[in-house]
């Protein structure tokens, strides 16, 4: 008898339990019925498609998505980005997929340049965007005439017209004079390179040849909706261009500046030749000029933080990514029109959309916290290299960014041996030296730097590259010779 009853009891028990479980999960997933399932599937939550934060362009009234898609680090076939592997073709399918995803989640600004991905970015961007109606997206590109051979008016016109052609558009939403404040080198009549300071460079590229005036003309014709410039380097040029704006000589619809929680107050501390973002942003805000933001993550350095900082940030907010802190910081100031982020992987795109859909501005207290983090990072004495590779190729074959990346990695991972008496010395020494040979082939290591300084003209961070390379080399020698 009991044998007969038991199965029924068990079945009933299962039924009840099942109903309870369904009820519980229904309560838990009230907002999103998929949420619970997905939390087991992915580490990055699926972002909403309709919550993107937009900022209004005061000039045109256009609603620009706070997240701008930087087309500088496009994916290539076989993995990685098109900047590291110039010989591999760009993975256009993946570019399309990412662009589709971004647009599907409310992103509408795409930033490129004739210089990006060895000149292949504009074309790829054009292919991806051309599949959408022209009023669905905004494009920003640049007049990237870095090479002295392209400093004539004709070359400038050609570059601009080529951008329209590659992007398959008949007007540009945002056009920038690229990297104002930089210095350059130009061969003189004898073929010997002479050095031009930032002002000479500015005049040679855009003023003396009448290129800027021509661009203003293009704007009047409607081929350029917003004219601005991106700034790196000598602050005198930033001030000069704003002075022209004040005088009414030229009008800037926007300016692209570097802004993140490290550069806000520490840029000049890291390198006296750099200017704090606080100054740049305030100057623009005073004049009502909207800011576009670049390097919100400092080339990924603010996403890949040292272990102890990782712990600190995760202790405060275990839910969100490390990168989201920096993205929120960059997007919080009201005068910021859009934050440009170069995204190679779909995961980056998702994470950034999550941060900005919608943006939760950083509070005063959080700003304080990030200030502390910035202090920590500055205190590490890493080399402020963002791996942008503008310095490359070194004519003597040195892989400059790879050396700095390895050096910074060892600092961040606590593998910098300070003394042979340290209990971890052997482990640290091995990690540094073996890792060095792995990241940089012997012939491309710092010991081969001749100190010609040719790379330093190109560094947007104004790093004294030769000096830093020699510092790394001295450290390597000390490790090899056991003289720590």
């Amino acid at each position: 008898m009991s044998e007969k009853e038991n199965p029924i009891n068990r079945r009933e028990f299962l039924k009840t339990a099942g109903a309870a479980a369904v009820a519980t999960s229904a309560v838990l997933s009230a907002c999103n019925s998929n949420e619970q399932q997905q939390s087991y599937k992915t580490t990055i939550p699926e972002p909403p498609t309709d919550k993107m934060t937009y900022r209004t362009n005061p000039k045109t009234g256009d609603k620009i998505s706070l997240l701008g898609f930087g087309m500088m680090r496009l994916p290539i076939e076989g993995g990685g980005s098109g900047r590291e592997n110039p010989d591999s073709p760009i993975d256009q399918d993946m570019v399309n997929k990412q662009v589709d995803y971004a647009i599907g989640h409310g992103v509408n600004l795409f930033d490129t340049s004739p210089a990006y991905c060895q000149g292949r970015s504009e074309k790829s961007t054009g292919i991806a965007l051309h599949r959408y109606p022209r009023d669905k997206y905004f494009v920003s590109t640049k007049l990237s005439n870095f090479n002295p051979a392209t400093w004539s008016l004709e070359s400038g016109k050609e570059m601009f017209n080529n951008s329209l052609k590659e992007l398959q558009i008949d007007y540009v939403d945002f056009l920038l004079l690229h990297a104002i404040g930089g210095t350059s080198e130009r061969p003189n009549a004898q073929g010997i390179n002479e050095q031009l300071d930032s002002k000479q460079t500015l005049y040679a590229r855009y003023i003396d040849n009448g290129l800027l005036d021509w661009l203003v003309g293009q704007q009047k014709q409607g081929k350029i909706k917003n004219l601005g410039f991106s700034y790196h380097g000598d602050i005198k040029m930033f001030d000069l261009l704003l002075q022209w704006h004040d005088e009414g000589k030229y009008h800037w619809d926007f300016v692209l500046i570097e802004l993140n929680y490290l550069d806000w107050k520490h840029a000049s501390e890291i390198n006296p030749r750099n200017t704090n973002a606080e100054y740049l942003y305030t100057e623009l805000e005073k004049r009502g000029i909207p800011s576009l933001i670049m390097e919100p993550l400092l080339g990924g350095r603010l996403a890949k933080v040292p272990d102890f900082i990782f712990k600190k940030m995760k202790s405060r907010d275990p839910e969100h990514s490390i990168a989201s802190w920096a993205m929120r910081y960059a997007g919080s100031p009201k005068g910021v029109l859009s934050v440009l982020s170069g995204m190679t992987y779909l995961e980056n795109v998702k994470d950034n959309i999550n941060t900005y859909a919608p943006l939760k501005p950083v509070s005063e207290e959080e700003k304080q916290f990030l200030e502390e983090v910035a202090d920590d990072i500055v205190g590490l004495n890493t080399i402020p290299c963002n791996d942008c590779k503008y310095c490359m190729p070194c004519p003597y074959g040195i892989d400059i960014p790879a050396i700095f990346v390895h050096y910074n990695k060892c600092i961040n991972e606590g593998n910098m041996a300070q003394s042979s008496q340290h209990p971890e010395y052997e482990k640290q020494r091995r990690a540094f030296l073996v890792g060095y040979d792995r990241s940089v082939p012997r012939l491309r290591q710092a010991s081969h730097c001749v100190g010609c300084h040719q790379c330093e003209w190109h560094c947007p961070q104004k790093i004294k590259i030769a000096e830093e390379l020699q510092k790394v080399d001295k450290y390597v020698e000390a490790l090899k010779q056991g003289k720590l």
Partner: protein
Amino acid sequence: MLRKIRTAAAVLAITLVTLLFLDFTGTMTRWFGFMAKVQFLPAVLAFNTAVVVGLLLVTLLFGRIYCSVICPLGILQDTVSWISAKRKGKKARFSYSQEKRNLRYGVLLVFVLLVVAGFTQIALFIAPYSAFGRIAESLLAPIWAFGNNVLAGIAEHFNSYAFYETSVWAKSLIVPVTAIVTLATVGVLAWKNGRTWCNTICPVGTVLGFVSQYAIFRPVIDEKACKNCGLCARKCKASAIDFKNGKVDTSRCVACFDCIDACNAKAISFKNRLTQQKQGKTVNNAQQAVKDETVDTSRRSFLIGTGLLAAGLAKAQKDKKVDGGLATILNKKVPVRETPILPAGSFSAKHFAQHCTGCQLCVANCPNGVLRPSSDLGTLMQPHLEYDRGYCRPECTKCSEVCPAGAIKPITPAEKSSIQIGHAVWVKKNCIVLTDNVECGNCARHCPNGAIQMVPSDPANPESHKIPAINTERCIGCGACENLCPSRPFSAIYVEGHEVHKEI
């Protein structure tokens, strides 16, 4: 039992010696470097009296144990012979032959004359330990390194620093060719007849054989117990047992104990001849000119050797990787030096040539890719320094630590820093300061002795780009400047060797 101990010891010995040549991390030489130093010929050349006397005493006591458990070439032959026996399915395949006394002592005489007259580089072709070294260094080490690199790739994948990559490259042509010819010759002889090489050609075998005639302990045949079955003779890889006459030729016996193990009648034992003289008879047999059983393998093996070598070279050619975004770097070319550069600790070209057996142990252990065998006839296969791949780093004294032959005497890094093995020479037409009109000074920056000063290229203009000025009084010839000079393929600064090293 004795045979098992011998086998175990031999396996251990050949493993350790081989690892000395394979391990590029320097760990093996630190612990087992002595395995090279107890080799007979290197010890003689190094005037290492303790080792030489010790080995002779051991031989006088127990016979040619050296040949069975210390000499790697001997153990290699036993291995080949063992495989041969397995393949042929014949465990007992040898037969007694008479000693080729004239050949043995003739070769020894020529060998000694060559060494005494300073032609070690010719004599070393048949020196057993260095012959093995050349095989290990040029044929085995590349395979080992390749395997390591596969592991290093895996380790890198898992972010582990347990293995690191090492470069595999052909250091010379003559050493692998010689190694292949030696391996083929010795291998064929061992495959067919066991220890023929050791008892006809090998100079060390002959010397030790002379001593072992008088060995105290030796295999003795008990004539009463002996059934004259001949199994011992057929197991004797030295062809030294004349069972019909109940004699064992102890000058050729390599004390392998195979016969003792083989005898079903327990008629052979390893005994003290002084106490056991009555029981057995072991006499050296008289000589008879027997028609030499010469093997015409040399030509065939040479042909095989060249074939293998060509295949090896074809592989070495595609060593290049393409990496965009980076300037291509031309490989350095070795400059023509009037005097070759020899490692610190070798005193002089003369001392070095007389002592070096060309075993390649230093070449295998040089962590900086500097040492490589010479292809010059006068110093054939003896190493010298080239700075196209690296330079003689200040903290390293590896070659002086491992050299078993006293060709490179042990030195400390401090001593090395004051031994002048050469001096740097500036080549104006290559210097990038003048050709590229840039600042450089990489040579001065890396000179461990501060022997290079940068001075204005135009004496009239103190602001002009600086060129190097070499203080040859302070230069030790380490090659840091030559190796790190940005001028390619020929450096703008290179080292001339010194025939006689001096202290500065």
